[in-house]
């Protein structure tokens, strides 16, 4: 693990930014997460070390966008490529964050980081050079949909960081696409700050090619009366880990999350979510679906934290899992930690296979077993995919998933 060795030695390097130096320093004493920690216990050690085996990419290769631009108005950004962004319209403005703003915000975030809980972010920020950090300030309304791409080139480790400030009363649709090339590792950290009364439909689609790895972390802070809708899809990664941390900083905010992860062959994909309510009247509706086939392993761990000041919180979390092979495995752990008494909190988890009665019914109507299974899977996927903004009409993800081998 070349990178870990580098972190351990931590040679003074003038090319490093201040943030990189801070993160390297934080990681130096224990550069790897503790494998006994609850958040890393189930993570496949050899796959994680495979992730870290590549050397850091200095120069991005040419990037092909996976699907055509569906409308002229859509704003497309590629992290690492767009240097100057300044879109000012009478209704809205999208501007790059100044270096000072960016530094200040990231530094503040780092001060709350803990070694095991935020290891992915610390690694990302210690590797992400200035060019690969994209900071945006979005303001206004009637904003055209935004697509942001992040990608990893073959045989290298790529670290990309995205910081977005959504100003007051702003409303936006944003799709983030993370793509991994063959034998690559991508570390993507996203920081989202939703100011009062803002609302976002956020989609995260991550897919890889043969033996690609992903560490994807998403940190969201929601201020009062903001609304955050998140639709996510992760598939075709040898190893992928998706960490979501959402904090309703003063309550009175709405969060909807619908996530899907699909594992095949010997892949391992995991989702860890932590939702903290730091004020009253918070709302959460979360569903996470997993499908595990062949010899793969799908993991979901979700925690909901409701402290004393978060009275009248209404939170629900559901983990639904399909296990399609006897060699595959699924681990799920929805958690509730509650101190406030006037709350409605519930969670549920199921692990099952395709419904035999439904399959039988379809077969009696002349549908083959393969087709019937596809139909069932498509309804299972559809609930999540239809929640992912922008892509739903033009980019046929469902087709991609069902015909994927």
């Amino acid at each position, binding site marked *: 693990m070349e990178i870990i060795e580098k972190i351990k030695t931590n040679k003074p390097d003038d090319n490093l930014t201040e943030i990189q130096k801070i993160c390297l320093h934080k990681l130096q004493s224990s550069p790897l997460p503790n494998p006994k920690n*609850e958040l890393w216990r189930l993570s496949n050690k050899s796959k994680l070390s495979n992730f870290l085996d590549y050397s850091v990419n200095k120069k991005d290769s040419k990037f092909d966008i996976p699907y055509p631009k569906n409308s002229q108005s859509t704003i497309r950004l590629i992290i690492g490529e767009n240097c100057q962004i300044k879109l000012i319209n009478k209704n809205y403005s999208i501007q790059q964050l100044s270096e000072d703003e960016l530094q200040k915000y990231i530094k503040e975030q780092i001060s709350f980081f803990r070694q095991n809980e935020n290891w992915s972010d610390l690694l990302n920020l210690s590797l992400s050079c200035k060019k690969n950090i994209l900071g945006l300030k979005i303001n206004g309304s009637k904003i055209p949909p935004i697509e942001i791409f992040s990608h990893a080139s073959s045989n290298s480790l790529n670290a990309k960081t995205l910081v977005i400030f959504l100003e007051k009363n702003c409303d936006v649709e944003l799709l983030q696409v993370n793509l991994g090339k063959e034998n690559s590792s991508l570390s993507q950290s996203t920081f989202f700050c939703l100011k009062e009364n803002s609302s976002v439909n956020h989609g995260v689609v991550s897919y890889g090619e043969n033996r690609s790895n992903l560490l994807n972390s998403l940190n969201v802070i929601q201020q009062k009366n903001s609304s955050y809708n998140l639709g996510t899809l992760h598939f075709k990664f040898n190893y992928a880990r998706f960490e979501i941390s959402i904090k309703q900083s003063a309550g009175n905010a709405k969060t909807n999350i619908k996530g899907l992860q699909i594992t095949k062959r010997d892949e391992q994909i995991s989702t860890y979510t932590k939702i903290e309510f730091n004020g009253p009247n918070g709302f959460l509706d979360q569903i996470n679906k997993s499908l595990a086939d062949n010899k793969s392993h799908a993991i979901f761990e979700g925690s909901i934290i409701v402290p*004393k000041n978060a*009275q009248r919180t209404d939170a629900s979390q559901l983990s639904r*899992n399909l*296990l*399609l*092979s*006897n060699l*595959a*495995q*699924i*681990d*799920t*752990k*929805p*958690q*509730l*930690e*509650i*101190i*406030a*008494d*006037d*709350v*409605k*909190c*519930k*969670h*549920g*988890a*199921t*692990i*099952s*296979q395709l419904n035999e009665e439904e399959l039988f019914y379809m077969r009696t109507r002349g549908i083959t077993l393969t087709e019937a299974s596809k139909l069932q899977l498509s309804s299972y996927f559809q609930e999540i995919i239809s929640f992912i903004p922008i892509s739903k009409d033009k980019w046929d993800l469902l087709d991609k998933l069902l015909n994927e081998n």
Partner: protein
Amino acid sequence: MVNENLVKDAVKEPYKYGFVTDIETEKIEKGLNEDIIRLISQKKEEPKFLLDFRLKAFKKWQKMKEPDWAALGYKKIDYQDIIYYSAPKQKEKISSLDEVDPKLLETFDKLGIPLTEQKKLTNVAVDAVFDSVSIATTFREELAEHGVIFCSISEAVKNHADLIEKYLGTVVPASDNYFAALNSAVFSDGSFVYIPKGVSCPMDLSSYFRINSGDSGQFERTLIIAEESSSVSYLEGCTAPMFDTNTLHAAVVELIALDDATIKYSTVQNWYAGDEAGIGGIFNFVTKRGKCLGRRSKISWSQVETGSAITWKYPSCLLLGEESVGEFYSVALTNNLQQADTGTKMIHIGPKTKSTIVSKGISAGNSKNSYRGLVKMGTKATGSRNYSQCDSMLIGDQASANTFPYIKSQQANSEIEHEASTCRISEDQLFYLQSRGIEFEEAVSMMVSGFCRDVFNQLPMEFAAEADKLLALKLEGSVG
């Protein structure tokens, strides 16, 4: 708005069992080392295999670390500051109940445990354990007629050494966990039950554990073996006096069910929980596990946990036999500064196994109540099913309720369902009851009892009255 103080008062009930029995006891010196273990073994005139078992466990324990993963915070336990053997002094051999020290009988009488004349009125056989030793076991002759063995584990070691040697440590091995290893090294007494093939135990069996001294720990061990096509219902109750020091209780319970056998194990745990400031109380670290070895065997745990300053307890089922069934029904009530981390483990190993988990947690005051459970489907558990439900009720805004279910499946042809919810006493329902002339306290009790009904329905009839008495809440009418 509900007046929170009123609700808090409604769940408050003074601890009735906090008295100390003034009786001369024989204690060994404080501390834990090989010599102490040899001394305990020698006092109990144990065969060599048991001494070896203890010493092996002690060696393992020395290499182990106290677990810290539970959502519990307590001051470090000094294992050298505990007396590992304490027994009331009495005549060498007791042939009948009449020879038992009247003070002891009085103690159990005060606790409502029928050892003497009362025993005739009830149909429950009792094994009473006072500190480290078993005082008396009732109804033995009647049980013997059916071939049922019910005695203290010390007696079983002497009279049924073959069974002890065959089964002890097979469900909870000495190296299982820190507290099980400690128990295996120093266990003093407990109950032994053997139900022969085809026998349905004619009465409920019960053991009652009483800690009397403040500086000695209690380490009892229970072993229940149900042979083919037999069945038994076993009840367990516990209390302790009020001391301002913390007393350690680390027990191990092992259940073995062979083909078509059924074991129902019910507990009402009401150890002293410490005072309102959190001073004193029992540290309760218990390992309970049942092995459904035979086909169609069934093990059912039901528990009402109201006492102890710290509760660390996960009664579990290993479902090995085809079509075996595991059940867990639990009510855990915490108040003041009590902390409970309790739940179950259902390990599905054999095919077509089924398990049900119903857990109700009530947290009041500044207490912390966590459900922690594991459901695991192994690769051979085809056609297996699990259903879990954990509900929490919060009273006051200082208490916390946590749910940590671990769910793991390696078998595609199996189903797992889990649901959990959190609520508080609904103001609407409270208002409705009060508008019908029901007193506030009674209305709260009714609602709490309604919340726990699923679990209380599982408690055996004979136990119901006792459970009712022991529960710190007034749960009238719902039990049984």
